[in-house]
């Protein structure tokens, strides 16, 4: 041991002395995150790391209010819907320019949506846009005059506006796309509060303030996104002031940082759900009593303590409480081992299967925002099920293949989750539990739940424009789903972000979009 210390001291001697500050001065925000963006072309952007840059580079026709989920005008100043709900007319804001000087007009909007919707569009170079299904209701987009655009729909849609606020519907500069061709994702041109400066992959992505932004120049001169995979390193960098803001840190690290002076933490109830899927095509999981028993066996409150360090709330339904149409009236199955055992034993007798029941429990190999400690969660569930006579065998797969296996229904039980794309219950219920989404190739109805009544309700709700009626349909659907219990909703996790207290004006948005337009340093030179 003495030798080790001596050795370290010897190695340290030449390095300790010299100092070097590597933090750039001035009005530059440095954003530390767990990975790099993949593309800055909104039609191809998909992973969170790409999205958080895209939302700062581009604007959409409508957008979320700065602090709430209300939709407010953005590039479209106002809009109206026809009587039959099939035609929407958007009036574009005048005088807006893209970063390359191209004026924002109907041509740009039509071009943007043609890229998103058309097969083999001449200016889409990298395959089908992943978010195209969210815009399938659009038949055609046409420019009426320079500042007016009409959207013709195939069917009335209650989610059109919400989806138009999504990053994938960001309006792009046609000149920019035509100039850069297949390299547009490396040379993005939008109308957003920040414009693109440079990108050295896996090193830094630099944005600078857009002096001409229609909502005024943002206070920050520059924003630099840096990818730092190791969260321990990001924590160290935050403490030293080398980065100013960091997201996706493990709960325990955030708790540690909370005690450090000069660190501020923001928290939001996340619009997500972490859940346990049960493969309904595999007996005896097709018997509701078995699924109810599993529901009674899991103490969700305790799970929150064990696997989320208390930073989550137990889930009753797949729709998080932060989202409209969340069913508040549903009372969860209480944690009751005796009742669970009883249900399981009677199901075993009637269904003719033996106890202990052996099931495979799938768990993803790396954490997700809605499932921050997958291994601990899996072990917790395994122990809980052990008490009622189910032997769960925990099987782990790397994230790349994990959801493919679940889509193919290889699991008995599996951990999964979802973060909403558009803050609409359709995105939670239709995507995750509708029979349309049972498919070996990436279907998201992992439980293979097929209830025709639920299907009818969910399809109807997609087209219902009366908000109250629509809400009722989602409440009814949630009740039926709760009774059928094709999944056990486990938790809705908190989203937390850590930043230096010098940083003001930035507010973590309920949608979790990282919009930096209003951020400034309190001690910034004026």
């Amino acid at each position, binding site marked *: 041991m003495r030798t080790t210390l001596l050795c370290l001291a010897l*190695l340290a001697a030449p390095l300790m002395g010299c100092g*070097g500050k590597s933090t750039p001065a001035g009005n530059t925000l440095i954003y530390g995150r767990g990975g790099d963006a993949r593309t800055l072309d909104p039609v191809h952007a998909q992973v969170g790391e790409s999205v958080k840059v895209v939302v700062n580079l581009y604007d959409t026709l409508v957008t979320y209010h700065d602090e709430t989920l209300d939709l407010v005008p953005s590039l479209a100043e106002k809009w109206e819907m026809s009587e039959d709900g099939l035609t929407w007319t958007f009036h574009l804001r005048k005088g807006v320019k893209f970063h390359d000087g191209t004026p924002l007009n109907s041509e740009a909007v039509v071009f943007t949506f043609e890229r998103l919707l058309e097969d083999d569009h001449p200016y889409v170079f990298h395959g089908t846009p992943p978010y195209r299904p969210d815009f399938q209701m659009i038949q055609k987009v046409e420019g009426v005059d320079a500042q007016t655009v009409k959207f013709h729909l195939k069917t009335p849609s209650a989610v059109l506006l919400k989806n138009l606020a999504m990053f994938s519907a960001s309006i792009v500069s046609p000149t920019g796309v035509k100039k850069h061709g297949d390299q547009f994702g490396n040379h993005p041109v939008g109308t957003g509060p920040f414009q693109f400066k440079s990108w050295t992959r896996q090193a830094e992505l630099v944005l600078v303030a857009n002096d001409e932004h229609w909502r005024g120049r943002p206070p920050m001169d520059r924003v630099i996104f840096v990818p730092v*995979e190791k969260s321990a390193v990001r924590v160290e960098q935050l403490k030293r002031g080398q980065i100013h803001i960091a997201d996706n840190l493990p709960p325990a690290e955030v708790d540690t940082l909370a005690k450090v002076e000069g660190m501020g933490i923001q928290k939001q109830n996340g619009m997500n759900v972490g859940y346990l899927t049960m493969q309904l095509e595999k007996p005896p999981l097709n018997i509701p009593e078995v699924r109810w028993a599993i529901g009674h066996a899991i103490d969700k409150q305790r799970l929150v303590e064990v696997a989320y360090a208390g930073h989550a709330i137990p889930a009753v339904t797949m729709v998080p409480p932060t989202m409209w149409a969340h069913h508040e009236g549903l009372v969860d199955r209480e944690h009751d081992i005796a009742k669970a055992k009883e249900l399981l034993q009677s199901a075993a007798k009637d269904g003719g299967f033996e106890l202990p029941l052996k099931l495979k429990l799938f768990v993803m190999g790396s954490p997700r925002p809605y499932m921050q400690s997958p291994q601990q969660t899996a072990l917790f569930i395994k122990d809980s099920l052990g008490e009622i006579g189910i032997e769960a065998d925990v099987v782990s797969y790397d994230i790349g293949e994990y959801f493919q296996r679940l889509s193919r229904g290889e699991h008995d039980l599996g951990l999964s989750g979802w973060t909403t794309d558009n803050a609409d219950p359709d995105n939670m219920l239709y995507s995750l539990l509708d029979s349309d989404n049972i498919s070996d190739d990436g279907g998201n109805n992992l439980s293979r739940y097929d209830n025709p009544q639920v299907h009818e309700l969910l399809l109807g709700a997609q087209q219902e424009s009366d908000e109250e009626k629509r809400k009722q349909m989602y409440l009814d659907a949630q009740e039926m789903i709760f009774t059928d219990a094709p999944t056990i909703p486990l938790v809705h996790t908190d989203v937390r972000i850590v930043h230096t207290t010098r940083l003001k004006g930035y507010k973590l948005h309920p949608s979790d979009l990282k919009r930096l337009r209003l951020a400034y340093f309190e001690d910034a030179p004026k």
Partner: protein
Amino acid sequence: MIRFLAARVAQALATMLVAVVLVFFAVRLLPNNPVLSRFGQHAVPDRVEAEMAKRGWDRPAWEQLLNYLGDVFLRGDLGESFFRPGENVTTELLNKVPATIELTIAALVLAIPLGIVAGVIGAVWRGRFPDVFFTTSALLGVSIPVFFLGICLLRVFTNMPTGFRLPFGADFQPVTGFLVPETLLRGRTDLCVQALWHLCLPALALSTIPMAVIARITRSSMLEVLSADYVRTARAKGGGRWRVIWRHAFPNAAVPVVNIAGFQVGMLLTGAVLTETVFSWPGMGRYLVEAVKDADYAVVQGGALVIAAVFVSTNLILDGVYVWLDPRTSQMESTS
């Protein structure tokens, strides 16, 4: 001699071809389908097939292989990343490989001289304090996992950079990817100092294993040589202690050291994977790790090709060095 080297070159090329083919199939045997992987939880079932067809991934593997080999060897095109649309693998590797090579060289600059000196000292004072000190350090060096060591170094040296090659916002667009020489040549001495400064900790973390290995090999090889008759004779003739050690003993002890040092170059490239992740080094290792997770065919294949090329060419160079150090090598090879 020429025949010997020609045979070696042919062998090297064959090795590379085998490596490329093996990796080509290995990456296709991964259980995840890149198209589904890219679309993740947003996969569009009916489009997945079309996407596969568009990229030719629905064709038989041998046909895909022939196409790939054609692209690589006839057109020098390594293809495009599937997960980062618009990213050309050749261009990207031309940026990443120099970053890794610079880091590897820095690590070797630390590892080779320090390793050799430690080994020689250990052999000379066998069983005494310097020997115990260096042997223990070497044991520690090979045993500590790089990512752990990296985090420790970051915590201890609080005024050192926490990663990357230059300070954030340096806004220097390199042409070659070799930052140290390039910043110097372009007259940015300030950035050159920064680049060297940023190299310190990752190079140190990366150097411990090869340093330890080199020290141990040097020590045992030196011990053998020091007990040889000719060394005793040299001493008897009145040669000074260090003159005998460095002029008579060490050159003969060096052959296995060169051997192992060369091997370490290859090992460093793989070791760099971990170091690069800890220190956010924009090199090939970190690039490849991400690609393997995604099953990004073109990137994994391109990276494997480069690694194979580096391995094979260092071995070639080493073969040359052996022949130069010990001319018997080439004769032995050609007669056998």
